C-alpha cells in the first residue's frame, strides 16, 4: 500500500500498481506532482511506458463515439503558413519549428552562432567540458532551496547533461558534488515573455520530482542544492524540463508539459 491520498485511503482503497497508474495517466486523471512523476516515468521506465501505450490502444476506440467536427478552412491555412515558415527557417539553418512554437525563434537565430558548445550529435562530454569552464563565474542562485547538511552523496565526481531544446540548442547542466550545486547554462535560449521553463530532477525511486528552479534564458546560473536533492543525484539521473507560466509552476497547480529531458552522466 503506497498510495498517499489525502482523501482517506482507508481499507477500501485498492492496491495501486504501476499498471493502474499507467491507466490513470492514459485517461488523464492525474494532476500535479503525480502527473509530473508519471511523465518522468514514461521516459525512464519502459514497462510503464509500454503499459501506458497498451491502455491508450484499448481506450482509443472509444473515441469513435465522439462526433467529428469540421474545423474550417482557416485552420489549414494557419497550419500551412506555420509549416512554410518552419521550412524556410530550416532551409536557412535556423531554429527548428518547435522552438518557434515556444516563441523563441528570433533569439535562437542569433544565439545559434554564439552557442559555444553545439554538440550536434557529437560527444556530449567533450562538448560540456567547455561549459564547466565558462559557467564557473558566480551568479545569483535561481532557487531558494532549504539548507540542511548534505547527506551522503550518491556521486562524488562532476556529472553533466546536455539537454536538447529543439534541434540545435542545448541546455548545459553540470553537477558539482563538492559544492552541492548545479550549474545551469541557458545562454542559447531567450524568454518568450509568456512562459518560463522549470528544471526537475526525477528521482530513480519514482518519488516526486524535485524542482531545480526556473531556467533563466540567456544566463548561466548556480543552483545550490539541498541534501534532499543531492542524495538523488547519481550517474544516469534523469532531468526534465517543463513549460510553465512565468515564475515557474505555481503552488497547487498542475505542472506543464515536459518539453525536454536529459540524463546526468559522468564526465
Amino acid at each position: 500500500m503506497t498510495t498517499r491520498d489525502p482523501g482517506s485511503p482507508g481499507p477500501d482503497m485498492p492496491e495501486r500498481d504501476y499498471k493502474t497508474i499507467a491507466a490513470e495517466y492514459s485517461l488523464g486523471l492525474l494532476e500535479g506532482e503525480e502527473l509530473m512523476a508519471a511523465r518522468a516515468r514514461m521516459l525512464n521506465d519502459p514497462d510503464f511506458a509500454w503499459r501506458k501505450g497498451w491502455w491508450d490502444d484499448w481506450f482509443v476506440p472509444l473515441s469513435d463515439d465522439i462526433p467529428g467536427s469540421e474545423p474550417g478552412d482557416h485552420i489549414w491555412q494557419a497550419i500551412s503558413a506555420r509549416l512554410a515558415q518552419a521550412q524556410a527557417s530550416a532551409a536557412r539553418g535556423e531554429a527548428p519549428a518547435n522552438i518557434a512554437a515556444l516563441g523563441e525563434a528570433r533569439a535562437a537565430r542569433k544565439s545559434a552562432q554564439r552557442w559555444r558548445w553545439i554538440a550536434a550529435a557529437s560527444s556530449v562530454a567533450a562538448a560540456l567540458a567547455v561549459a564547466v569552464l565558462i559557467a564557473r563565474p558566480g551568479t545569483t542562485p535561481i532557487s531558494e532551496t532549504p539548507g540542511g547538511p548534505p547527506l551522503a552523496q550518491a556521486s562524488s565526481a562532476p556529472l553533466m547533461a546536455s539537454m536538447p531544446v529543439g534541434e540545435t540548442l542545448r541546455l548545459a547542466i553540470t553537477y558539482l558534488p563538492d559544492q552541492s550545486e548545479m550549474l545551469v547554462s541557458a545562454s542559447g535560449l531567450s524568454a518568450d515573455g509568456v512562459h518560463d521553463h522549470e528544471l526537475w530532477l526525477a528521482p530513480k525511486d519514482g518519488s516526486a520530482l524535485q524542482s531545480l528552479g526556473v531556467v533563466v534564458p540567456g544566463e548561466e546560473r548556480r543552483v545550490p542544492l539541498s541534501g534532499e536533492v543531492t542524495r538523488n543525484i547519481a550517474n544516469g539521473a534523469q532531468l526534465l524540463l517543463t513549460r510553465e507560466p512565468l515564475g515557474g509552476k505555481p503552488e497547487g497547480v498542475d505542472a506543464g508539459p515536459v518539453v525536454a529531458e536529459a540524463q546526468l552522466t559522468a564526465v
Partner: protein
Amino acid sequence: MADSSDDPAAIAREQLRAAMARLAAGDSAALEEIYSATRVKLFGICLRILGDQKEAEDALQDVYINLWQRADRYDPQRASPISWLATFARNRAIDRLRTGKVRGGAVPVDEAAPLPDEAPLADSLLIDAEREAQIHKCLETLDEKAQTYIRAAFFGGRTYAQLAETADVPLGTMKSWIRRGLIRLRACLEASEKGEDAA
C-alpha cells in the same frame, strides 16, 4: 482484419499509412493529405476534450505541426494510423487542459455520453470495430460508478479531483471507485487478448 481491396475502410487505412510513411520520410506535402483525411475526427476529439472552439482550433494546429515534426515516431507495425493519430490528438488536448490555460471539462458528467452528430463521423476511418466492441463489453462488466466515471475521464478529460467535485464525494472515494474499475477492466481486456481466437 479485412484486407479485401474493395473494403473502403481498409483502403482509407492503407492510404493514411502510406501518407504517414511519406511524411516520416520528409515529404511535407503528405501532411495535407493526412489533414484532409483526419481533420474532422481529430477536431471532434479536441473539441470534446477542450470544450471550447478557439482552444480546440489552436490544439488542432499544434497536433498537425507536431505531427510533421514527429511523424517518425509512428510505428506502422504497432497501431493503425488513425488510432495513433486519435491518441496523439487526445494527449495534446489533455496536455493543453493541464497547462491550466483552459477551464476545460465543459461537458457535465451526466452528458458525457456522445453528443448528437454535428458532422459526419470521420469518413470510413473508424478505429477498429473488434477492439471497440471489446472495450465496451469490458466496461459494461464494471460497477455502474466505475463505468460512468471512467467514461467521463476519457470523454471529458477530467481529473480525479474534478470528478470527485462533480460527484460530490471525497477524493478518496472517487479514486477507489475508478481504481477498482481499472483493475477489473485490465483483467477483462487481458483475458480477451489471451482468448482472441475464441472470442
